[in-house]
């Protein structure tokens, strides 16, 4: 082999003559050895580089040294306490406030507004409800509630507002009562701590 190599940008080419084998000046692999070891190069490029290294003493030494270094790096022991960290994480998660309760509250409040408005509008179509308001609600407020078109919208709106407030206040409290976290399935991964 011993092809002369030229590299430019991300591309490269190996010429069939030049004979740098054993020359010591070839730097083709120096820039790409990590890509080669990490398996990032296209198959054709990888084969061509390996083929080049087979005939180039400098590049073969470069590749072998890098491979030895990576092998040593991977062999360096690292002990982790996977399940102990989960136990700690589980306790921290249990202390977390309810997630995004405001979103649930917003949705519920909207439903509350619509539902209460509808219920109120229907109620005001009932004469007995209107009579009850005329008997029990103070004059000033009664006139406000029952004046013409306001009758159809003001009271429902007040009811809806009340419903929304209840929803915004109550739902986060309900959401905070989350079920406990399930246990971590660690059977397949025994703790590796020393």
């Amino acid at each position, binding site marked *: 082999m011993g092809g002369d190599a030229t590299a430019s940008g991300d591309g490269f080419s190996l010429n069939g003559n030049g004979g740098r084998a054993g020359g010591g000046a070839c730097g083709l692999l120096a820039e790409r050895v990590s890509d080669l070891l990490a398996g990032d190069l296209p198959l054709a490029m990888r084969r061509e580089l390996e083929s080049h290294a087979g005939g180039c003493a400098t590049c073969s030494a470069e590749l072998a040294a890098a491979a030895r270094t990576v092998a040593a790096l991977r062999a360096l022991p690292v002990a982790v306490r*996977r399940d102990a960290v989960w136990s700690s994480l589980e306790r921290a998660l249990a202390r977390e406030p309810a997630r995004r309760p405001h979103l649930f509250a917003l949705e519920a409040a909207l439903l509350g507004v619509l539902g209460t408005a509808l219920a109120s509008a229907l109620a005001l179509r009932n004469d007995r409800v209107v009579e009850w308001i005329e008997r029990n609600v103070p004059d000033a407020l009664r006139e406000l509630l029952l004046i013409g078109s306001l009758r159809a919208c003001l009271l429902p709106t007040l009811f809806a507002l009340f419903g929304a407030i209840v929803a915004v206040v109550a739902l986060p409290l309900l959401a905070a009562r989350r079920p406990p976290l*399930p246990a971590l399935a660690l059977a397949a991964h025994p703790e590796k701590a020393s």
Partner: protein
Amino acid sequence: MRGVTPAAVPSDVDLVRRCARGDAAAIRVLYDRHGESLLRFLERMLRDRPRAEDVCQEAFLRVWRRAELFDPARGTFTAWLYRAAANLAFNRLALKSSTETELSAQLVLPPADTVNPSEEASRNERSRLLHDALGALSPQDRAILTLRHIEERPVAEIAGILDIPEGTVKSRVHYAMHRLRSVLEPALGVDPGTPAAPEQDSR
């Protein structure tokens, strides 16, 4: 076959979405999947087990708290998780005083149960040399080296995780490999100037 169809296994994206809805079982599955590799990465990067565990826990808490912000169009869940962890790790390191640096890093050597004690001693010596050489690298270089050559992540993903240009990732890998090699090769009895036989398939 074990009766588990691919459809029965939720993807990371599905699990993060479940986290966003407050499903506590989903964060457990995500930890089960990625917790150990993240711990190994952080221990290699920080060389400090308590700190690595602390950062790992905080990273998963961040996943839980910010799950709705995860955008799968911008990268994988692991890249997002590792980026959060790396940011937390660098923040912790910035807070750490220089006098504390590396004090708690300890090399845990495997038990000497091999047949050849001299070979074992030699291997332990090489491990110590490598451990010391890694300690001389910056945490960022250790992170880059780990992501590139132990976890075999693409350069682009590493650049995204550490928020640095791809060119920097490549040059730092090159530098770190050179540093480690210059320590290891003499210990292995290899003359760096002497061409060695090509290694067998490196992958």
